[in-house]
């Protein structure tokens, strides 16, 4: 395995980042074909294999079972969204992938390395962005990055280049010498993300990358994740923001009570479990609402309460007889929230 940081081939497409001259960084890739070729089989990652595989993984904390027989495969090169409410076991799953939490039973493989046994090799090839901001406040942006080039064993000759690249990715070039405690919330989070990318990992774990940020800042970060996808990096992202999962993830897994309840391409999941259109009907207060629900259920349709309205999934299949009595609702597109609630009875956010 090479720690030179050029494990993946040059990006399949032109760099998506218009003002980041990412292409120049790939110059050294053709120069070490021997190293790359020798490194790949040893890392045990044949192309097409899963970047992450969990089989029947169980994790208990005393009497509480946080992860309950989890099976999960993350194909290499995808952006994979792990979606679920707080307490579903997302963070515990993330921590088990870096061996910072040890499973009670089951098998975990990350980039071909069995975890926790060979976890250090796996950690050398992946980048982790923690949920808790743990930047070194007293250090500058550049110093924060430089420390992680050491921890990730970027060779001495490449450290400066790796820091510069991370600064460009995070659009923090002109803030390089500012102390981390002087950064805005969005800048801090960008720094936190690129800090996990200084060694050009093949796999990136993002644990709730946008939690607590305002929507505008959240969108800024989405660009960063999209750029990773363009470079062919595998991304596993946990989130409880439905919109984030729908927009960014190629594949999502819905997680509840320590298990995966559904897995697939967001659009397919929506089509299957919620239907392309969902209609919302205002519901009267009191027992009348339950009566309407029963009537719809009798027609074989699924509903869920959405505040003051009742959402009918697969609204295209509402039979005319029912339609006559319900009247016209307001139609909207189905979403992952509908899927999630239908499958688990729980809300995500």
């Amino acid at each position, binding site marked *: *395995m*090479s*720690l*030179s940081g*050029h494990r993946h081939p040059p990006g399949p497409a032109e760099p998506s980042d218009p003002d980041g001259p990412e292409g120049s960084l790939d*110059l*050294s890739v053709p*120069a*070490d074909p*021997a*190293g*790359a070729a*020798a*490194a790949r089989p*040893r890392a045990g990652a044949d192309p097409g294999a899963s970047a992450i595989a969990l089989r029947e993984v169980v994790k208990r*904390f005393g009497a509480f079972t946080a992860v309950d027989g989890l099976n999960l495969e993350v194909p290499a090169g995808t952006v994979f969204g792990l979606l679920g409410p707080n307490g579903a076991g997302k963070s515990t799953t993330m*921590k088990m992938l*870096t*061996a*910072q*939490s*040890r499973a009670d039973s089951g098998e975990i493989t990350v980039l071909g*390395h069995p975890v926790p*046994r*060979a*976890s*250090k*090799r796996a*950690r*050398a090839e992946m980048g*982790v962005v*923690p949920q*808790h*901001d*743990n930047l*070194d406040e*007293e*250090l500058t942006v550049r*110093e924060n990055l*430089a*420390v*992680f080039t*050491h*921890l*990730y*064993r970027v*060779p001495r*000759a*490449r450290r400066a280049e790796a820091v510069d690249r991370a600064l460009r990715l995070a659009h923090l070039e002109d803030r390089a010498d500012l102390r981390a405690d002087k950064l805005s919330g969005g800048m801090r989070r960008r720094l936190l993300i690129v800090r*996990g990318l200084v060694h050009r990992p093949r796999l990136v774990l993002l644990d709730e990358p946008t939690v607590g940020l305002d929507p505008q800042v959240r969108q800024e970060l989405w660009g960063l994740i999209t750029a990773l996808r363009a470079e062919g990096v595998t991304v596993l992202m946990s989130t409880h923001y439905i919109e984030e999962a729908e927009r960014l993830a190629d594949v999502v897994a819905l997680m509840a009570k320590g298990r995966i309840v559904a897995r697939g391409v967001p659009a397919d999941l929506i089509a299957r479990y919620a239907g392309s259109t969902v209609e919302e009907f205002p519901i009267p207060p009191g027992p009348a609402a339950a009566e309407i629900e029963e009537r719809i259920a009798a027609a074989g349709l699924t509903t869920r309460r959405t505040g003051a309205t009742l959402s009918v999934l697969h609204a295209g299949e509402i039979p005319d007889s029912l339609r006559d009595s319900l009247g016209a609702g307001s139609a909207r597109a189905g979403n992952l929230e509908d899927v999630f609630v239908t499958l688990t009875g729980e809300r995500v956010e």
Partner: protein
Amino acid sequence: MSADTRSAERPAAAPGPAAKAPPGRFELAPIAGVLAREWALYRRSWKPTTFASVVEPVIMLLAFGVGLGSLVGAIGGYEYIHFLGTGIVATSVLFTSMFPGLIDTYVRRVFQHTYDGMLAAPVDVRELVTGEASWIACKAGVYGCAPLVVAIGFGLPASWAMLLVPVIAFTTGFGFALTGIWMSAAVPSIKTMDYIISGVITPLFLIAGTFFPIDTLPAWAQVVAKINPLYHCVELVRGTAFGLDPGTAAGHFAALIAFVAVVWCLAVFQMRRKLID
């Protein structure tokens, strides 16, 4: 061009350290990584750190050495300020290693989540603990010499053997840093550190022959003193100034090494319990 040749050679000639080493082995690269972070932080904080580490023992030395020394006169045939100067090297080492080990490590682990970030990188707990303790020990090795330099200024004859003081201070500091790290991971809350500071650190630095020779103590306290690693540090430092036969010196140093070995295991075990669940 030169960059290309370098990158072409590097992977072939020197595959990454993680590739060569079997997983889980103790490696130097992660320790270097931990030290790199400490160095970056130290570049920001060296002024107050140096001030505290140098000025405090020097004030203690001057106050007790000159003030109390005028009453005491000589101890064991040595001028009191010379006796004390060699002893305060040890207390200085204790303070500059045990407090950072205890408090800084606690803050970084519990409040700053620094170690969670490091352990997500290719760093294992044993390397993290060794790196943190080595850095603290380096500082103890350097700052511990300050009281000796002051004592030399007050007429303590310098000797070649004193060049070993940084080594003695490093070894002792390494042990007490590990002790602090161990205890920082053993305490249930930051408040309970008061038990350690008053109940452990204070007796450690007083019952070690630092301010007075231990042969004036009752027999049981002399036994306690000999178990105290700081006593062995004091004897070694004093030996470099006043002379010590090599056999006895080797015995004291062996005691320090044994201390380091025991607290290393305790610190790694306890930190792993707290950091990996």
